[in-house]
């Protein structure tokens, strides 16, 4: 039967809309909107009534210390200042752990960025000119240029005495010291440098000034990259140092009998001892310069 009923065309349902004349009032309220509104209104009424009752039934003898401690400042009630309550050592330890974890995350992110920058900043001799790239870093990649020793084996002392770098490498004398790319003399002429098309166009037009400006722009961007790398290397070191310091504080707050060792010599000894499993030495200073060193009594664990 019902399928029959479905076969007959029925009038489509049309929802009533807000009349044109009352458009300024917004959408027409429907019953489901009304229920929501009414429920909200009643809840508020109940809350107001509850507060009214509480006030009416108040005990006039009631006393809390907060009532005498509370202050107003220029007529505004002051909440108790934060941190007025001392943090329990256990909670403090937990907070320190959070701090250490946060620093570890930041440090890891920094290392990743450093690795990415370093992968494409290869520290040629003239990197980051004109100051040679700055930084003294030997293996940290912030120093400039290859610094390894290059030995050329020649036949006998006579050949060694007559050795001439430019001649040996077959390059121009001024390029003999340019380790990363000593172009051969014959290649110097055919210097097929690939440059962006618009710059080539400038060069073809003979606009030397514009080309120079473009080249110095490239150098500037390169310098900026090196500067960023250096900055990040420094920041990573600071983050790691802070993490270590906080970790030491956290350990000191923990359990276990400990005693302070003094001096860098003692620190080294303690480190060695911990390696041998005698006790634990936890070194509390960054970059291998032990400042404060503590030794924990070995504790038997069941």
């Amino acid at each position, binding site marked *: 039967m019902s399928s029959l009923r479905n076969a007959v065309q029925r009038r489509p349902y049309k929802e009533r809309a807000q009349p044109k004349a009352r458009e300024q009032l917004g959408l027409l309220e429907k019953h489901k909107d009304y229920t929501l509104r009414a429920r909200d209104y009643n809840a508020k009424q109940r809350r107001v009534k509850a507060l009214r009752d509480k006030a009416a039934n108040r005990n006039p003898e009631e006393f809390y210390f907060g009532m005498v401690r509370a202050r107003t400042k220029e007529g505004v009630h002051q909440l108790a200042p934060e941190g007025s309550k001392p943090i329990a050592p256990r909670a403090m330890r937990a907070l320190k752990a959070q701090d250490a974890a946060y620093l570890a995350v930041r440090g890891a992110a920094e290392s990743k960025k450093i690795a990415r920058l370093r992968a*494409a900043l290869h520290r040629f001799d003239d990197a980051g000119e004109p100051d040679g790239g700055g930084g003294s870093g030997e293996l940290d990649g912030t120093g400039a240029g*290859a610094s390894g020793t290059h*030995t*050329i084996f020649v036949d006998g002392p006579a050949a060694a005495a007559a050795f001439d770098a430019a001649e040996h490498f077959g390059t121009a004398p001024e390029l003999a010291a340019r380790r990363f790319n000593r172009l051969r003399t014959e290649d110097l002429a055919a210097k097929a440098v690939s440059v962006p098309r618009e710059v080539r166009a400038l060069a073809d037009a003979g606009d030397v000034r514009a080309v120079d400006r473009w080249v110095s722009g490239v150098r500037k961007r390169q310098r900026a990259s090196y500067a960023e790398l250096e900055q990040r290397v420094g920041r990573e070191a600071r983050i790691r140092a802070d993490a270590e310091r906080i970790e030491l504080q956290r350990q000191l707050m923990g359990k276990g009998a400990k005693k302070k060792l003094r001096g860098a010599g003692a620190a080294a000894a303690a480190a060695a001892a911990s390696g041998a499993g005698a006790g634990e030495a936890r070194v509390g200073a960054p970059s291998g310069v032990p400042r404060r060193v503590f030794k924990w009594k070995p504790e038997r664990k069941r």
Partner: protein
Amino acid sequence: MKGGKKVIIEPHRFAGIFIARGNDAALITKNMVPGEAVYGEKRITVEENEVKVEYRVWNPFRSKLAAAVLGGVDNIWIKPGAKVLYLGAASGTSVSHVADIVGDEGTVYAVEFSHRPGRDLINMAKKRTNVIPIIEDARHPLKYRMLIGMVDVIFADVAQPDQARIVGLNAHLFLKNEGHCVISIKANCIDSTAAPEAVFAKEVKKLKDEHFKPLEQITLEPYERDHAVVIAQYRAAKKAK
């Protein structure tokens, strides 16, 4: 690739190697398989004579050969068209750049005995047809002699104490006379107690015993610590007096 429009590409002393300057200052090789990186390295696309060319950054902090190139060796002997035997290929990160350098005309035979990095090596070789991966111990070159013809250069980075002997064994079978070997030496791997310079000198001596004539040696600071690359010639012709 972003920034590609603002890059200068300079030629390098060695054919097949270039230098990019832009935001970066990087050693690069021309990517044989444009659009794909091998180990997540940065790529740089430029337009050369209306055609797009892609380069890959060759990180000297990861590849000893790249570190030697930037250190300024006289010759790496690996050049377009060369046949190279690469011992200790690992996952093929450096091998992929060597493949870029030798190009379609050249061949790289990449030997690695460990299976796990060998898998990556094989995957890399699927895309680079000039790489022939060989998963064998380089100490037993007879096992793979059928796969390899004579080569121009042997590159060795096996990080084993008997590396010189391994190179000798392979050279006797595969290296043509007056061919070259390029050897990366990690002082720690050979003798962790001796001074690095002494270790390098000893390795050079061992190479001499294997009929190599040392040409040059370079230590890889600032890219690696206590590493050296030695380049030598095999059965060099006696100098005409």
